[in-house]
């Protein structure tokens, strides 16, 4: 083990920690706290620039290009994004199930339901796939925006929108890579309850990324 795991009450754990907590869990929470400031800087900028773009396309309003007479419809696609939001929310459910499955790995399982719930590989797969699906939606969204005439250079909205959601997407990407790494470990040597912490910190990160999306979905997509 890279460091002590206070989580498992294994008496072999020789590193004393003040709070009896694993240092990695303390660090990931501090990291999440820090990420709050990162995303608030991005979100603030998006909101500050909301409604300040000189040229379209705009998120919620139509815009007619005075030079060409071309009409740009409101660019945000609420139905598609609602679907991707739902997928990301469900990924959080899969994630808690993956963690529970790892934590209860050694408990005997009697029913078929218990065996399904206790299948850590299944839930890690589901989480990672949901994350990848979300990224697919985002790729679709980005490319269709570019086709419709909104790029990161078009206007203030384009710059702040792509940067904010792109940063979020990059976080999801990192999360998917993390989950796939855990899966690889699970396939190679099997994740047991002594590895709970490894999944726990990944899960905290994953949920945090989900929570950020909850905020972005409302502030960027739903509020006009």
């Amino acid at each position, binding site marked *: 083990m890279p460091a002590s795991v206070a989580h498992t009450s294994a008496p072999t754990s020789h590193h004393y920690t003040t709070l009896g907590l694993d240092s990695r869990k303390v*660090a990931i929470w501090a990291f999440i*706290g820090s990420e709050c400031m*990162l995303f608030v*800087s*991005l979100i603030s*900028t998006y909101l500050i620039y909301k409604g300040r773009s000189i040229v379209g396309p705009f998120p919620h309003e139509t815009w007619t290009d005075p030079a060409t007479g071309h009409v740009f419809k409101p660019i945000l696609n609420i139905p598609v994004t609602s679907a991707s939001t739902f997928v990301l929310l469900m990924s959080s459910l899969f994630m808690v199930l993956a963690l529970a499955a790892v934590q209860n790995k050694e408990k005997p399982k009697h029913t078929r339901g218990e065996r399904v719930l206790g299948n850590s590989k299944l839930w890690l797969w589901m989480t990672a796939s949901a994350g990848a699906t979300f990224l697919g939606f985002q790729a679709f969204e980005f490319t269709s925006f570019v086709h419709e005439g909104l790029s990161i250079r078009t*206007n203030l909205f384009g710059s702040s929108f792509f*940067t904010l959601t792109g940063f979020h997407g990059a976080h999801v990407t990192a999360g998917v890579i993390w989950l796939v790494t855990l899966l690889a470990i699970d396939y190679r040597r099997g994740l047991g309850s002594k590895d709970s912490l490894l999944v726990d910190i990944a899960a905290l990160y994953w949920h945090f990324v989900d929570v950020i999306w909850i905020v972005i979905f409302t502030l960027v997509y739903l509020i006009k």
Partner: protein
Amino acid sequence: MATTARPAPKHSPDAYGEHSGLWSWLSTVDHKRIGVLYLYTALFFFMFGGVEAIIIRAQLGAPNQHLVSAEFYNQLFTMHGTTMIFLAIMPLSAAFFNFLIPLQIGARDVAFPRLNAFSYWVYLFGGIFITIPILFAVAPNDGWFGYAPLTTRAYSPGINIDFWVIGLLILGVSSLAAAFNFLTTIINLRAPGMTLMRMPMFTWMAFIVQVLLVLAFPVITIALVFLLFDRFFGTNFYNTVSAGADPLLWQHLFWIFGHPEVYILVLPAFGLVSEVLPTYSKKPLFGYPVMVYSGILIAVLGFGVWAHHMFAVGMGPIADTFFGLTTMLIAIPTGVKIFNWIATMAQGSIRYTTAMLFGIGLVALFTIGGISGIMHASPPADLQQTDTYFIVAHFHYVLFGGSIMGIFGGIYHYFPKITGRLMDEKLGKIHFWLTVVAMNLTFFPMHFSGMLGMPRRIYTYDAGQGWDLFNAMSTAGAMIFPIAMLVFIYNFFVSRKRGEIAGSNPWGAGTLEWTIPSPPPEYNFAKIPTVTSRYPLWEGKGIDYECARINSQEGKTPADLGIVMPYSTIKPLFVALGLVTMFCGLIFARALIGVGAALMIFSLYSWLLSPLEPEHH
């Protein structure tokens, strides 16, 4: 206990156990050695930034001089500020965080020893990256606060600012990684009984600084990312001309980071002086809880005062009033600390060692900077003072008079713990007095030249505006610094080799780090102590004598004691190298981005999948 038996190290003051040679330094994960690396590197950059300052002062020594061009002058003051803040003072503080935090809280190392090495290497490579350009006269040239839109491609087309943006992003990674590490260490690796309210004040201030870092650095990271995108990918964040961007966006984001940053720079020095003054006054720190709470209050309020750097932009009466008020409020906890230090010394049996002199110097000189700070906390007064040499005087009194004095005090105080030998006191005192004279001669006249209207950042000026004398004085003062530094450096290196052997507690100090040998063995504490008071060495029953006896033994290897130590590893260095290579790619050749990323990811996986330390049973 699967540790293989190693040859017993000769535990002379000159060597850290069996460790020596270049490889051992490149692959070390020992917090003490990383602290020493930080110390040397930061001292180097401190002198580099000092040379830049000397050239600046030489140029300004008399009116209408043309020692350097206006363009090069811009590079000099930009790099002087950037170097001193990010490459000298912060890393000097980090040197002490590294060396002291685990020793003060009774831990064997920091929470993540390899991450700690990573922080250092990123700092070193980032520092080199941002420093090299000035040797080719293509250094950043828009000031340490890099105001956009001035820093956008439209107004700064060269690669100068590219180095600045990317360099600061790199250094931010280092600071953040270190901050998570120290935060976790202080929260989670305190020895039994080392409650929060028993922590030495240095560790407390370090704790607060990590919180500030964790909260402030993401903001500048985003501001810099915007600037990077604007410069490289044509986004519009700071494009005020054709896209309608707000010219104040950068200023706000920068100062939301910038004000907490000034406390990041000074609180570690406050912590050091809070160790120095009690030791040489033979009295516990006065008002310990108040010191803690005022530190916390400074951190909290520190996030609500940023716009006092922007009074001149016309934010309107509500914002001006609000930020003026909060700025005056934050002076209160700062003042409280000063009074506590004075009360600590009051009626103490004071020993005027060099460290103590620097401590007293901090109390006196920082106060002057605090007072001028309160002066420009008032928006109407600030309109007179902003962007003049008065501001330069202010922040040099707080940064030199505060941070640097505190750090020198810390160096003299902890040199024996770090090296096992004492520094020469006579030379130390010469260093101190030269520094005090130089400091005041350089910066005090700036209050006057500023009040007489001399703006910051002009490369020369006409005679007859009443500024000549003050500038001549400032320049004369500045020329004394190199002499002071030479005395210091001479003292440092000679004492390291030939100084008097110090023993574990040469100053009769009271905290945990003085219970173990100097220099400490690699595992720090043979037996993790149980702490029952703030100054275990001072308060008779505060110490477990058996434990202290075990811990003061010299020459024991970890294997003798059954202590599992982390493996040394080169991987963090490679991750850092990959990261910096990746960023270099943006400027030099895009192909480097892929190479750097591959190196980084490969080394990172290899690091994360290899065990920290030998398996134990």
